């Protein structure tokens, strides 16, 4: 096993393409995405519904080496400032295979 950072980003679904672009630019490697989430935050309640998913959030989880995250978090911060959301960073062990 290998120590990594576990980054968990929640944004509105429509922000995902921009977030993916950041992840591509920062070459963080893999990620996993859950869509159709609801939530509450500074911008009120998101119900996870709406005929075009207007009120749905998505959560992106990224496991990556600590070294790779500074630039990434910089870009993510700007995105969150513009569109809202949250980003948590914690420690985890990656099972090598």
């Amino acid at each position, binding site marked *: 096993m290998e120590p990594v950072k576990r980054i968990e980003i929640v944004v*509105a679904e*429509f*922000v995902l393409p*921009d977030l993916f672009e950041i992840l591509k630019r920062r070459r963080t490697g893999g990620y996993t995405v859950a869509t*159709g989430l609801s939530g509450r935050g500074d*911008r*009120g*309640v998101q*119900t*996870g*519904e*709406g*005929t*075009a*998913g*207007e009120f*749905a959030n998505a959560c992106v989880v990224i496991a990556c080496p600590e070294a790779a995250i500074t630039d990434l978090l910089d*870009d993510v911060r*700007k*995105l969150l*400032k*513009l*569109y809202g959301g949250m980003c948590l960073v914690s420690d985890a062990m990656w099972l090598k295979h």
Partner: protein
Amino acid sequence: MSYNPFSTLLDPAILFFFFGLFAGAVRSNLSIPPPIAKFLSLYLLMAIGFKGGVSMASAGLTWGMVAALGVALFMAFLVPAYTYWFLRSRLSAFDAAAIAATYGSVSAVTFIAAVAFLEQQGVAFGGYMAVALVLMESPAIIMAVLLANTARSRNPASNGDAAVMPSAGKILHEAFTDGAHLLLLGSLAIGFITGDAGKKVMDPFTGNILKGMLAFFLMDMGLLVASRIRELRLNAKVLAAFALVAPLINASIAIGLAYALGLGVGDAFLLAVLSASASYIVVPAVIRYAIPEANPSLYFSMSIAMTFPFNITLGLPLYFAAVTTLWS
């Protein structure tokens, strides 16, 4: 007149809308799964586009068509312009632009309800009105984005994040390739290409079950409206007033123009409905991304929680009464 246009409030689809409102108001746990709601929405766009395309295929280029599309396009520029001008002094430029986009654009579901209304009344209308619907979707959005960009460039404080703001090209791309917009356009084209032969095979799906699908969809809209009404906090009374008065003004202008140009009753009514309606699918999809500074709990809530229910309940019979009175 011996008949009562408000009798359409007793249409099953409209009654399911009221039922949804009621279920939401008593906080029932009734809910339509989001993938189903989205499917119903796509279905309605496909059905209305296809239908419009088919009926265009059998019609030639007429004065009525040119005039109706002219009025549609004119309204699509007029409404956002005067809305922005009116709201600019009362709200931030971003909120004013977002509301201008919302009211300048149109609601496809309101249009579908209006078409069902006409069919029930047995009044004819041009297939090209679906083209009017498509034409009216985008201009307001583009105007609003331009207005917001101007406002943004004047305010260097917010420039720190300019790096991540989407570019103009990207926003135009979003506006024109938005799924709802494109599906309407595509179905219109396919209906036009396949004409009556296409209609014959598609009708059991796009025609016969439409009313039931619409009823389901409007029930969901009722639930959504109820939950949005609950959260509605329009501090400025002027916004609440705007959400109810703007449709009347916009419908009146459209009716006046249609009358002046000698359009038919059906077309005049649909132009009134389109002008009176406010977008709650395409516009929020683009504006949340392109004008993130604007507050959705203003523009979106006004549209979905006030203007939409007003239009499909009182608006439709009102505009129809006005048109039939004027034309008779």
